[in-house]
């Protein structure tokens, strides 16, 4: 059972650190919004400056960038830096592979809006997913009083159900 590196996989992996946050619906939503915004800032920043980082220094720069922002956000809002793991998983797969050479793309190429559309979709999808999971948690833990949702197990079972439905979409199976 090898997991494919698609957007859905990265979305689920990016959600896992959010299980550690003991926040309610509002704070979780704000944290997810911040992750999406920061993802877009990071993608734009490294898309524009990637050619300035020779060879493997891109990787070092990326992680330093993450750590510096984690420090800044902690200083300003006291949000624990678990969110950087989410950003790491939401970033494009080939981004940190030194073997992958960036191809030269004209700013007016059709690839540019598509690239940014996919990243935007990842961010929006992540926020919707996190808020939906927070809603489920609130409803099951506080509304229905299910003890299973006081620990990660409850959410993991919900994710398993979502993954099952996602994997067995009728139109995809027909394709």
């Amino acid at each position, binding site marked *: 059972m090898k997991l494919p590196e698609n957007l859905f996989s990265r979305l689920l*992996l990016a959600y896992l650190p959010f299980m550690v946050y003991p926040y309610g619906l509002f704070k979780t939503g704000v944290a997810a919004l911040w992750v999406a915004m920061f993802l877009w800032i990071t993608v734009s920043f490294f898309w524009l400056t990637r050619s300035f980082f020779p060879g493997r220094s891109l990787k070092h720069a990326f992680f330093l960038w993450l*750590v510096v922002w*984690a420090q800044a956000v902690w200083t300003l809002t006291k949000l624990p830096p678990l969110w950087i793991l989410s950003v790491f998983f939401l970033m494009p797969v080939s981004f940190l592979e030194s073997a992958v050479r960036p191809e030269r793309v004209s700013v007016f190429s059709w690839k540019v809006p598509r690239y940014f559309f996919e990243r935007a979709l990842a961010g929006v999808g992540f926020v919707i997913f996190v808020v939906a999971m927070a809603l489920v948690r609130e409803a099951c833990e506080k509304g229905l009083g299910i003890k299973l949702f006081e620990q990660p197990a409850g959410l993991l079972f919900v994710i398993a159900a979502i*993954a099952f439905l996602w994997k067995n979409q009728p139109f995809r199976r027909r394709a």
Partner: protein
Amino acid sequence: MYFLIIPLGFVLALRGGRSVPLQRPVEGLTRVWREAADLFLTTSLILTLGVVVLAWEPCRGVAGEYTILGLGVVAYALARYQKKSDVFFLVSMLIAFMIHSRPVDLLSGLSLAWAVSVGIAIFQTCFLGLRYRLLFSNVPAAVKGWPMFCLLAGFLSVVLWSVGRLIF
């Protein structure tokens, strides 16, 4: 601290490095526990360095203010030196930070690091064992992959919760 074990153990089990060979479970088991020992040693070293720097008068103010930056740089250097994966670096840094942000002394911090590392190793061992057993079961294709992994992680979380409540 229990809430760190399941999500981070799950992340390490899926993206921690080279995929564990399911056909050779003993090799996989050895690798899981070696990684856990590395995680404990790395986290402990980060925590100890943090305490040493904070004990040094001229650095105390800066180190106290830029904790994440300091822990992150040390964790990154140690992970690169050991040729570990990026996920290992992030996980070790996050565990070190979560322990460091608690009002505990160094010995208690190291005990927590040990407990979290062992918890992650137990989670990964059980996860590996269950995946190995599933190799010989007729798992329907519809639930293979993410649905099955999340179910296994959920069951392990229920089991480890009872043990975790006794420790944390």
